[in-house]
């Protein structure tokens, strides 16, 4: 299968290893990878802030890049939800509506793609650590992804998965984290406390944006936790 990757801006700039890991895994599974160089953003920040015209200006370009793809895979439940769930809303009643729906139908978040589309759960990875999994809210509640990443983690050799006692937002929330840093930070602290309670060494997630916020807090507060994207765990980088 020819897989078109959509690499979100923060993965490109801050976490290229996540993208590289994803490429390595999908190539190992025998697929051909294509990656459009631009656009670098799905338009979610403008959309979530209420600036839909400005969001659409970027989103039409994304649609144009992805329209001929066989299947689109995104290493983020958040940008994934933007394209899969919110593009049809954003373009409702516009000439691009059919195209938005078409792209939406062939768009997958990474873990969901491996498990639900390819039927792969064991990638032969090894990660001898105690980890806990953070559900990005867009993955969980917009894309309804819960089991897929856990199935993948359960097949990683040496990995012990311990669930947090509460499923709760980490407090990132895109522009929210800058508009209301005090709330965002408090929520992040609660998240870190819940993760620490599990005794995990790593917080694993399918969303680097959540992890950027969580890791930023961990570093500032010199907490013991570490964060890592699911793709990196599965690629066996460590």
């Amino acid at each position, binding site marked *: 299968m020819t897989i078109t990757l959509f690499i979100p801006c923060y993965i490109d700039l801050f976490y290229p290893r996540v993208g590289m890991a994803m490429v390595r895994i999908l190539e190992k599974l025998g697929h051909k990878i294509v990656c459009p160089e631009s656009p670098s953003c799905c338009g979610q920040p403008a959309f979530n802030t209420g600036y839909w015209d400005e969001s659409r*200006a970027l989103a039409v370009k994304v649609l144009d890049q992805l329209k001929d793809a066989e299947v689109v895979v995104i290493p983020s439940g958040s940008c994934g939800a933007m394209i899969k769930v919110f593009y049809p809303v954003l373009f409702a009643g516009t000439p691009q509506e059919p195209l938005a729906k078409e792209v939406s139908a062939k768009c997958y978040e990474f873990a969901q793609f491996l498990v639900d589309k390819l039927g792969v759960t064991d990638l032969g990875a090894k990660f001898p650590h105690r980890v806990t999994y953070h559900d990005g809210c867009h993955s969980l509640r917009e894309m309804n992804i819960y089991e897929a990443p856990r199935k993948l983690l359960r097949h990683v050799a040496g990995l012990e998965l311990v669930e947090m006692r509460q499923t709760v937002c980490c407090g990132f929330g895109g522009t929210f*984290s800058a508009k209301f840093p005090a709330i965002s930070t408090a929520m992040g602290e609660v998240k870190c406390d819940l993760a620490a309670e599990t005794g995990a060494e790593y917080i694993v997630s399918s969303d680097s944006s959540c992890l950027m916020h969580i890791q930023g807090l961990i570093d500032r507060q010199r907490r013991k936790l570490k964060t890592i994207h699911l793709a990196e765990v599965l690629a066996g980088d460590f």
Partner: protein
Amino acid sequence: MTTAAAKFKKDVRRVTADLRHRRIINAALDGYAVKRDQKKALFQDWAGARRLAAATKYEAINSLDRCLEQFARGLESRGAKVHWASTGQQACEIIVGILKQRNARSVVKSKAMTAEEIHLNEALARAGLDVVETDLGEFIVQLRDEPPYHIVFPAMHLTRGEIQETFRKRLGDAPSDNPEELTMVARRVLRQKYIQADAGITGANFAVADAGLISLTENEGNARLTGALPRTMITLVGIEKVIPRLEDLALFLPMLATVGAGQLISGYNTLYGGPRQPGEPDGPEEYHVVLLDNNRTRLLADAEKRDTLHCIRCGSCLNVCPIFRNIGGHSYGTTYCGPIGAVLTPVLKGLQEWKHLPYASSLCGACTEACPVGIDLHHHLLEHRRAAAGTKPSWWQKLAFKLFAPVAASKLLWALVTKSGRLGQKLHPIVLGTRLDPAYVWTRTRDLPPIAKTTFKEWWRRTRP
């Protein structure tokens, strides 16, 4: 920034940093979650119950005119007087009017968020009436001159020590911080008030259309005494509280108790149909029901947000909301707080003045997941943002998003951003942690990751030519 927004930001900064507050609220709501989940598990099909509840409320709201007329006819046939109030002020005037006509001096009140919404207590006080809240939590916050902290748990932010202190100061009686002893103090005070009261005012949980009955659910028996002892009873009810049939209560009462308080059913469930009927030994001599619009018809006219009229005021969206749990109920500065408050307030009180509430959300969707009647809460927040930015955009945000689009869409400009970003990060330590830092809102509490030596796109270009 509006006054409400400035106050919100200030209060939020204070409360989010208050670790004691965080501990109290999280402990209380974690305890609630355990009980709620136990009771939810007793439903044979919780998802089905939610769908049915949403469908029932949909039916009621989409035939609101007929339901309300039926409801009013039923009550009137038993001698109750039904009043229709378009605004909060009208409702207050109606209620004050009834009380003045009866020469009432003292009023007992059982918990009613609708009364908070129209500031009824203030209106009654201005008319020279003595008003006492009889729900224990409401009684406590009334003694403290505070608004309720939470729709269902008005005094959840207080420790027993703080309640003892309040009783000592205001009632001169607080033997210990033992909850049972404190409750006995409140009971002694309240029993006297019930006996003296000329009128009782209650809210309503449901207005049952086909039977013409008010349904009230509570745990302390205070609403029953409020309705039973005084000669005049007044019930204030928002028009959205209607449900079509008496049998719908078989779903709504256990559902409300489950998500509202983690109970299978509330302690006291009462139906009120009118004043004392011939041959009945007790009950009020006259019964008034005040139906309140107060902008609810504005929500009814809005096809997108009409589902907010499904709300049964259970508070479950507050309980799961990480924003509410960290900023607390008082920071909102509104009658209805939490996610439902952030959705309702901009409609009830003005979008531009209150748009900060929809923006103060990570849009995590825990509220929508928890709502028993299927209100699409977090997407309504998104819609509010769109409407706010559409009618009065912030020029600098609009400009930023406008400029960002071509940059993110161009290979060349993105490469330029990457390179200048690296340079910027080299210089960043000079301003880091100061107001000159362009990333101050982030870096004040969080580290920023460095831009990678090789970005993904650079790697891709190099390895897959």
